[in-house]
Structures are given as C-alpha cells and as structure tokens.
C-alpha cells in the first residue's frame, strides 16, 4: 500500500500535464466536410431573404438577402479554416478556445438556414419567438432534472411532472379564471408527483428508474382518464383557462430582432430568466447547493458531517417537481390554451436529454434545451423548402444525446451517487 501511495505523490507533482484532445478539431473537420457536401456539392440556387423585423416594430431593419450558392462556398471555406485553426490550437496549446466552437456553430447554423430555406424567406423574429416557446417547458423540466439528479435521485418522471402540471393548471385556471392560481396549482401538481417518486425511491428503496417510468405511465393514464370523463364533459367550465398576456418591457422590447423575442413575452417566460440564474447561483454559491451536491456525490460523507441525507433528498426532489410543474403550466397557460391528451408528447424525455447534454449544469442544460427547441422549430420554418425531411430534424436531439452519452462530444459524467439509494447504517 505504501509504495502505491508514494508513487502517487511523485506523479501528482507540480508539473502541469496538458492532455491534448483531438476530439474537437476532428468533429469540426467532420462538420466542415458535411458543409462541403451539403452547401457546395449539393448547393442550391436562388436567394434566401432574412426578415429581421416585424412590420409593427418601432425600429425597422431592412431584410437581408443572401445568395445561396455563393454564401455556401464562403461558409465552407470559413468552416474549414476554423477546423484548421482548431487543430493548430490543439497542436500548440493543447486545447481549442471556446470562441472557435461558438463562431463555427453560428456560421454553420446561418448557412444551413440559408441553404435549407432557399429560395424563400425566413422570418427571424417569429422563428426566435417560437424557439423560446418550444424551449420553455424543456428549460423548466431540465432545471428540475438537474436539481433532482444533483441530489442523487434519477428523475425519469419529468414527463409525468410536466403532464400533471399542464393538467392541473388548466383545470384550476379555468375554474378560478386566474392564470396565476393555475401556475401555483401546476407547482403543487409537480410536487405531488415528486412525492410519489421520493416516497418510493427514498423510503421504500425501489429502483429510481423503475419508479420514474411507472409514474409516467400512471400520470398518462390518470390525466387521460380524467380528461375523457371530467374535462371533456364540460370543457367551457373546466378546460378553457385564460392565458398569460404578453408583457412589453418598456425600452428593452424595442431593440431590433432580440427585443420582441426576449422582452415581449408572458410571465412564465420571464420566470425562466429568473429561475435559471437563481438555480445556478443556488447550486454553486450557497450552502443549500453545497449540501445538495454533497448528498448527490457522496451521501455517506455528507451524513458524516451531519447533513440529513434522506430529508435533503426528499425536499429537493419536491422542489425539482415544482419547477418541472411550472414547465407543464406553459403548455396550457402559455402556448396552447387548453389541455389535451398526452399534450407533453415526450418533451419530458427531451428535457432529460438536455440535462445529460448539459452535463448536469443549469446554464448548459438551458443552452441544450434552447438548441433542442430550435431544432424542433426548424421543422416548421423549413417545412416547405427543406431538402431534409422534418422527421430527421425532430430526431436530432435524441441522436445528439446518444452521441453525448457515448462520449463522442466530450466527457459526460453525472453525479456519483445519482440513482443509488442511501441506507444509513
């Protein structure tokens, strides 16, 4: 034993070892090749017009027309240059700076839109608005997933929490005519679903994945049953919730392009702006977050220093349910305006994917949720023009997640004790 320990000390000396990872340049190169095939070899003719402002906007921005074939060649050259630059950075400094990834992604996305939407026009503000609308439930679901998994309970039940939130918020808001009460009802519904998850996984030590899957089936069955027996009997009384009105934030909403997208939204969307930084700050900069992460990483150590593991897990899983329930309310009070059977349609699983793709980090998970929402929106934007069938756009989040867990897009490692019940000895 002692020999091993000494050797460890020698290795862990003050030398900085830079591990060169060629993964990112290789991925960038692959995408540059893809760009060559799509934008140049399969290049299309015509001009794509990007419309950047609604006619009602205060500040008008002229539409931008981009010739498809020329821009394809330019973009491919740029992307190849970025890939080579990335390889050079790995050779000389060992890693690729983040700005190369971001610029690469931006150029690829814009050119992809230009190529796929040709020869029509793209309504940029509408597209971004819809992206936000499609992402909001994913973001809330992902935040709930991050908290729950960080505290050590695998949350497959996000789907059930979203669905329960949607159902209860629609019903309560319809009866009371108060969307705000519906929002609170959605949180309570999410908490109740979490109670089932917590009771069975923490108290009765049933495997968390199984409880999650069964809860999802249970909620689907229950909401479908109540929908067809109660809600559809008197839809005007029970299933016509008032929706949240969009609120203009005075100056900010006048900024061209991003103003209407981000600052002319309903209350639930503004809650996202508050919730994401709050969860991030809470997780990484408060005592609550430290304890939560300790319980999820090493419950025995947390218990040793006096943290009540069972109680911490129970209440934080409940909190996760409340947040995911908010996301459910967005379906009925924010976008659609009425409950329908299985209206969440697997969004909970995409939120789970966002948690993993975002590496259990609230900010990254939010970005992942936005990306997945954008991929979802693209099928509507490109539905008439795109040479790629919409099903493949819908598939994208799932494929990306499999690539992520397979370790092709960087190392993915969850909280160490996530999924394991803790039994105090």
């Amino acid at each position, binding site marked *: 034993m002692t020999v091993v320990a000494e050797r460890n000390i020698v290795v862990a000396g003050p030398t900085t070892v830079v591990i060169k990872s060629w993964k990112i340049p290789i991925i960038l190169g692959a995408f540059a090749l893809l760009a060559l095939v799509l934008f140049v070899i399969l290049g299309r003719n015509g001009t794509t017009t990007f419309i950047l402002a609604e006619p009602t906007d205060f500040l008008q921005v002229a539409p931008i027309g981009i010739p498809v074939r020329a821009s394809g060649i330019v973009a491919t050259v740029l992307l190849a240059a970025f890939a080579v630059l990335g390889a050079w950075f790995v050779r000389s400094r060992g890693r690729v700076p983040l700005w190369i990834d971001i610029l690469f992604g931006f150029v690829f996305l814009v050119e992809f839109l230009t190529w796929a939407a040709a020869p029509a026009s793209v309504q940029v503000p509408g597209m971004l608005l819809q992206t936000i609308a499609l992402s909001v439930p994913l973001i809330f679901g992902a935040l709930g997933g991050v908290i729950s998994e960080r505290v050590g309970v695998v949350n497959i039940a996000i789907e059930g929490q979203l669905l329960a939130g949607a159902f209860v918020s629609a019903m309560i808001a319809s009866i009371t005519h108060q969307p705000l009460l519906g929002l609170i009802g959605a949180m309570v519904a999410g908490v109740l679903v979490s109670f089932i998850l917590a009771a069975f996984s923490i108290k009765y030590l049933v495997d968390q994945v199984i409880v999650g899957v069964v809860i999802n089936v249970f909620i689907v069955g229950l909401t479908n049953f109540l929908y067809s027996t109660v809600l559809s009997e008197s839809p005007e009384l029970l299933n016509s919730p008032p929706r949240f009105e969009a609120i203009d934030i005075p100056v900010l909403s006048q900024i061209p392009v991003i103003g209407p997208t981000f600052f002319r939204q309903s209350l639930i969307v503004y809650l996202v702006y508050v919730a994401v930084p709050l969860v991030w700050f809470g997780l990484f900069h408060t005592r609550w977050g430290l304890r939560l992460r300790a319980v999820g990483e090493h419950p025995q150590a947390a218990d040793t220093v006096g943290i009540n593991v069972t109680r911490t897990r129970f209440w934080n899983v409940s909190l996760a349910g409340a947040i995911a329930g908010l996301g459910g309310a967005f379906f009925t009070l924010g976008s659609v305006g009425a409950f329908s059977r299985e209206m969440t349609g697997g969004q909970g699983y995409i939120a789970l994917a966002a948690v993993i793709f975002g590496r259990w980090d609230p900010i990254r998970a939010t970005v992942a949720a936005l990306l997945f929402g954008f991929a979802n929106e693209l099928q509507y934007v490109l539905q008439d023009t795109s040479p790629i069938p919409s099903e493949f756009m819908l598939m994208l989040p799932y494929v990306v997640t*499999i690539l992520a867990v397979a370790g092709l897009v960087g190392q993915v490692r969850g909280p160490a004790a996530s999924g394991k019940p803790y039994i105090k*000895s």
Partner: protein
Amino acid sequence: MSDQIPGSGQPQEDLEVSQVPPAARAPEPSVATTVLRQIVTGNALISLLAVLLALIVGAILIVAVDPVVQQTAGYFFSRPSDMLQAMWNAASGAYSSLFQGAIYNFGAADFASGIRPLTLTLTFATPLIVAGLGVALSFRVGLFNIGGQAQILTGAVCAGYVGFAFDLPPVIHLIAAIVAGVVGGALVGALVGVLKARTGAHEVIVTIMLNYIVLYLLRFLLRTPGALQAPGGNNPKTPPMKSTAIYPLLLGPNYTLHLGFIVSILATIVVWYLLNRSNLGFQFRAVGENPNAARVAGINVKNIYVWALAISAGLVGLAGVAQVLGTVTSGFGESIDAGVGFDAITVALLGRSRPWGVFAAGLLFGALKAGGFAMQANNSVPIDIILVVQSLIVLFIAAPPLVRAIFRLPQPPGSRKLRTPRPSSKKVVVTR
C-alpha cells in the same frame, strides 16, 4: 436474481445471523405457524394484495367520476342510500364488464361465443408475454431495457416488410418473416449493448432516445412512397401482409387467437431453459448478481452485455412480429406497438423477472386490456383506467413494506434490507 440484496451498511449483521445455526435463532415454531407465516410474508400474497389494492383505487376513480354518483351526491344527506347504491352500481358494473370482457361472457347464447373474451385475452397477452420476457431477461443481467417501443417497431417493420414485399412458399415465408423481426429487434439491442460495452453509455438513456429515433424513422418511411407506404395510398400505412406470411388462426376464423400465442409459450420455455439450465444463462445471472465477481471469475462482462441486450431486444422484436403477423395483418401504421413497449416493463416487474411469472403477468395484463375495451364500450369508463391500475400494481409490488403496512401484515425477518428489482451493479465492495 435475489429480490433482497443486503444493504451495504450492514454486512456485519448479516454475517452474524448466517453464522448462527438456524435452530439456535428462535424456538422452533409449529408447522402450521410456519406455513401461515410463509403465506403471509410471501411474495405471492404481496402480488395478490397489490392487484387488489390497485383495483380498489381504480374503483374509487370510476365511482368518483360517475355521473349518477355525482347527481345523487347532491342530496346525499336526505337519502344516502341512493348514492351508495349508485356507487355500488358504477364500480360493480365496470368490473363485471371487465371480467366478462376478459374471461367469459355470461350473456352469450352458447359456450362457443361466451368463451370468445378469453381467447381475446390470450391474443392481447401474446405480445405482452414475449416482450415482458425480453425486458425480464435484461433485468436478470442487471440491465434496463426501456427501449421496448423501438425494438417492437423495428421487429414489426422487418417482419412486416418480409411479410408484404416478398413472395415465398407458405411455411418458409412465415419463418423468414419471424426471423427478420427477431433479428431486427436484436440489432437495435446489440447497438445499445455495444455502446454500453465500448463507451459506458448508460443503457437507460440510449434506449429511451432510440424509442424516439426509431419512431421518427418509421414515420418517415411510412409516408415515403417506395419505402413502406402502401402503393397508391395517401395514409401513412403499409400494404397488408401476404396470406403466406401471417400466423394461422388457432381456433378457426371466429376467434382472433393465432399461432403467436404458441410461439410465446415456446419462448417462455426457451427463456426458462436459457436462464436456468444453460451456460450462457449462468453467465447472465452471474453478471447480474455482481459484475465485478463475474469478471474475476473469467466472464467477459462486456460481451455478456451485448449478448444479453441483443437477446432481450430480439424477444421484444418477436412481440412486434406477433403484432403485424397476428393481431393487425391488414397493414400497420406508426402505433403498431400499441404501448406494449412500456407495458412489457410492468409485466416483467410483476412477474419478478421469472419466465413463468412473466407468463402469468402477461396473461393478467392481457385480460385487463381485453376487459378494458369491454368496460369502455359497455360502461363508458375510458380504457385509460387500465393504465392507472397497471402502474399502481407495479408500484405496490415494488414496495412490499407499503402493502404490508396497509394490510397490517407482519414484516418478514430482516426486512431492513435494500430492495432493488435488479442487483445493484455498482455496489461498493469494502475490504478490510
């Protein structure tokens, strides 16, 4: 698989108990007491009580939404008997429809038509049994195959394509279609297994994601002429199966029961033999009990993961075969899986991952499904109530202490142990 794994926190306690000779632990109880105790603390009783509890909750839901009950509740204090009568009528009416729709229809003219519900139950049970066997097999290896939906759809597509696109002699055509479906499902499972073995990707995430990938792929193929869409049709639906490829009906044209049910019995026997008598099955169980120990014993754990997921998914694919070649032979759409992929998980759990347990659980859920349709038609109780009952059954079965507490049964000795439906594969081994 043992149902009860000692918790990592109490190895010493178990050691001490096992060192004490059995006779010295307690005074020898009488035979009658022992038998009674085994019945009361046994798994069979828990399963029975779990089903009972779930049916009670289902009845409460049915009663609560019944319009007559709500009407009579308005004057409950002046005439309470009306409401109680209405409640009884709602619950007993629904459950009697459930029974008559699943087992035997007492209103039928003769035995031949009265027994039809039972054959319907067996038809519904067929895909549930084979898919449940597949999921159960993965549980025994300590893996979670949640991708039943993807594997059923793949099995259905492969078997269906062979079934409608090729012209082959009668028996050979059927066999070719079955093999295609099983291999198709198995390939999806093998992909998951390879990803897990090579990269450590968690099979739960990969299988969930594959469910959607396969669904969208199928949706694309179904609306693309020349792929799976029936020629000349506008609907996303395949052409009907050729008559040479479909499972023959077992009891003549009046009943829906088809050869797939015999196949599911054979599959149960094969899985039983595989798990309990074969070399490969022994390795499966060894990896399921403790992958570290299995590796030390010379078992190639990664290969076992790939094989287990391939065989598991192949069985689930066989459920897809039963769907397209037996239940719906007139061409299929994207909902051909009929929720069997997720039902299979509950079937496997209810059957405690034992082949014949899964068989019985499949029969029960098949009966619930068949009866659920009758209940929906006769009592206007939505079939979704069956989903509620099924999920409650599994939740209760997974937590025996809860069921014992509700019925005030004695807790079995050593009940402070960790329960998992599968052996915890990442158990920390502490050596001193």
